[in-house]
């Protein structure tokens, strides 16, 4: 029996779904149609800053195990879905095709959030999400000139570092109390800030953006902060978070999370039969997760469900991040913040490196932690998870002379 899976979107998570399904579907049960909005095959979005640094486009393209053009796997680039009719199990594409599906996976991703401040649409303002965005930034960047990145999260730091490597002098503007506030605690954020400053990134945090100001040529000339500080800038990059792309929910009649996204259960199932949502567009039990590793787990879970294998229930405690920003390690492992049943121990060296471990209160077993700077690898911490904190833990996590 041959069944048709339609995948809407072809980012990293959709790519993972397709590849994983092709790996698992040994009997050739499924034929896959992918409706991709962008005009290029799936690429490593996480590594986009390397492209800013002059890396090649090919180097970022994600590998595929087999051809994506035949009847078994039909990738249609530049052909986004525009409507879904779940009662008839039909998808309408922008090219006018109408596709019947046996299973539908929504992987529409997210769009960058651009704060609606005056001047946000001046020439010289860019989002930071797609190849096209980064290509435009590359074309606009001028060595030695100032730039501003709005957003001090993972993406903002990547963008700022990319601009720095391109020879620009970037400042980061972040409104949260510390950098990477979604993943890190205050102590880790403080150390990260010190290290980023050492690299030459200027950090304004906490600081909120009031407006983007035009220069004499009418293009971006700088930004104004709420405290009236003016930062000169030839270009402004918005990396201040994303919003799930859930527009298809309108016609499809699916439930959405409180803050957007297709509402799904622990197995990524939407409220419609045979329809899943994965990645940035999925609100698992109401909450969107912006990390690719989380999206990958969703993709793998859905692939297993499609071939009838048991799938694990979604668990958001293992949302590890592991980032190297021009040599600065920033990583979280397991549970990075304590709840009422946990306690924390943090080891730090003169605001230059930081290792925090979350421990179960009763047993002193390790639940997770945060590492910033020249610490041990996250792997070393990960292998300690579920074990009683060893006697040499401090020296293990902060090795060598302090």
């Amino acid at each position: 029996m041959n069944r048709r899976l339609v995948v809407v979107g072809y980012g990293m998570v959709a790519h993972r779904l397709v590849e994983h399904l092709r790996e698992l579907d040994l009997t050739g049960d499924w034929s896959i149609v992918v409706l991709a909005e962008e005009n290029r095959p799936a690429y490593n979005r996480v590594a986009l800053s390397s492209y800013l640094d002059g890396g090649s486009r090919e180097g970022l393209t994600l590998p595929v195990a087999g051809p994506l053009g035949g009847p078994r796997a039909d990738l249609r680039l530049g052909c986004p879905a525009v409507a879904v009719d779940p009662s008839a199990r039909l998808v309408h594409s922008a090219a006018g095709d109408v596709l019947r599906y046996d299973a539908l996976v929504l992987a529409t991703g997210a769009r960058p959030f651009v704060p609606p401040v005056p001047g946000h649409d001046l020439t010289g303002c860019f989002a930071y999400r797609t190849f096209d965005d980064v290509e435009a930034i590359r074309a606009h960047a001028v060595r030695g000139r100032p730039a501003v990145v709005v957003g001090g999260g993972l993406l903002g730091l990547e963008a700022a570092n990319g601009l720095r490597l391109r020879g620009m002098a970037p400042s980061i503007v972040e409104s949260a109390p510390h950098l990477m506030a979604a993943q890190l605690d205050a102590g880790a954020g403080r150390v990260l800030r010190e290290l980023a400053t050492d690299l030459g990134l200027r950090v304004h945090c906490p600081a909120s953006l009031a407006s983007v100001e035009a220069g004499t040529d009418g293009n971006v000339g700088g930004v104004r902060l709420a405290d009236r500080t003016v930062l000169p800038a030839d270009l402004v990059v918005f990396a201040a978070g994303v919003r799930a792309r859930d527009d298809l929910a309108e016609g499809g009649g699916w439930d959405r999370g409180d803050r957007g996204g297709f509402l799904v259960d622990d197995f990524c199932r939407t409220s419609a039969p045979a329809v899943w949502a994965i990645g940035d567009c999925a609100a698992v039990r109401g909450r969107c997760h912006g990390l690719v590793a989380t999206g990958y787990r969703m993709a793998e879970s859905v692939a297993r469900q499609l071939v009838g294998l048991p799938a694990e229930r979604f668990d958001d405690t293992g949302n590890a991040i592991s980032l190297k920003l021009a040599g600065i390690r920033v990583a979280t492992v397991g549970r990075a913040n304590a709840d009422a049943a946990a306690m924390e121990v943090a080891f730090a060296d003169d605001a230059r490196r930081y290792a925090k471990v979350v421990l179960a209160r009763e047993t002193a077993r390790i639940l997770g932690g945060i590492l910033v700077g020249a610490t041990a690898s996250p792997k070393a911490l990960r292998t300690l998870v579920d074990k009683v904190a060893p006697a040499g833990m401090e020296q293990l996590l902060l090795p060598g002379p302090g």
Partner: protein
Amino acid sequence: MNGRGAVVIAGGDPVARRFAEMLRHHGYPGNVALLGTSVAAIDRAERRVELRDGTTHPYDRLVLATGTEAAPGPLHGSVLDDGAAAVLGDGTAAVETAARLAEQGVAVTMVCSGPHPMADRIDAQCAAILAASIPATVVGNVDLAALAPGHVRSRDGSRVVAGTVLRCPDPVPDVRLARSADLHVRRGVVVDEAFRTSDRRIHAIGGCAEHAGRPVPGAIEAWEQADSLASLLARRGRSGRPPTADVLRLRTGAIDLTCAGPAAALRGDRTVQLTDPAGRRYARIALRDDRVVAAVLLGLPRAAAVVAYNYRCGRPMQSDRLGLLLGLAPGRDDDARTGPIAPVCLCHNVTLDRLHTAWRQGCRGSDALARRTRVGTGCGGCRDEIDELCARWQREEAAT
């Protein structure tokens, strides 16, 4: 009487008597006069003190031990009729009072001029755990001077309702005598490491002295100041002991708080911080070359004793600081850091044994392994390790 060698002690601080005893103990040869509170003025030019009865006493060295001024009593003292009390003050006296009231079942609100109690000693996290231990509600940043009976109101307009309001300011150094003699005074009489004031012939110890920027030493520290100065004077300027270490210990039924060293040092070098709000425990220890330069410990009496002892003696701390804090056994380690289930690639959760299996099935080299397992295709942080593993397996294969 010739004043050469005569030590005159002025003030009613209990440390004055201790100092006189220690001078004798060290065999000080000159006259020692313990004049208590009868001293009315200092004549620095003539090197003599004037007493209230008009007589004068010459000195070679004058030691001020004027102590602290009496703390004001309740602002509005009445029976705790509604079982609630507001305690006004920032320091240890306020914390102790709040704790004693809470022990008796009184609902306590601490009203502080700083952001939280003891803000010169502890950070906000520690203060939150301290308040929960008492237990007390904290209202910070209140202009205490502007408060009047029945009008306990913070700057943001919120009001503290309490049947009783207790004013518990920290004791204030009694600097009247020093000030009238034009000695350098900040909060207390400013002294150096040898407890000298701005006049080399005048010393100050105990409650009135401000040593290392901190006025009103604790009882133990004041005692040590008396011993140190006595030893210094008896040996004609040669100190047998290092300057005293500053350790504050605050204990009530609900609280066990130890602060050692200057709070400013809590940020530098290696720091170890434990935060356990549910267990009402907190510790922050700052170390340099394994020696304690400053520490704050709350709810950890055993560890506090060890840390304070090491701090006083300048002894290095054990390497297993966490074990000390949590009371964990030293031989507790079980080691699985390099086992087969150790992940090599965190991005894709590829374990060592999955990689090895792929290798044995013919995936030779990092590219082949990546195609099979996706290892190294995320952040790329493990690529060096993959190359090393490949080289090792290659060698192992060649060897067999």
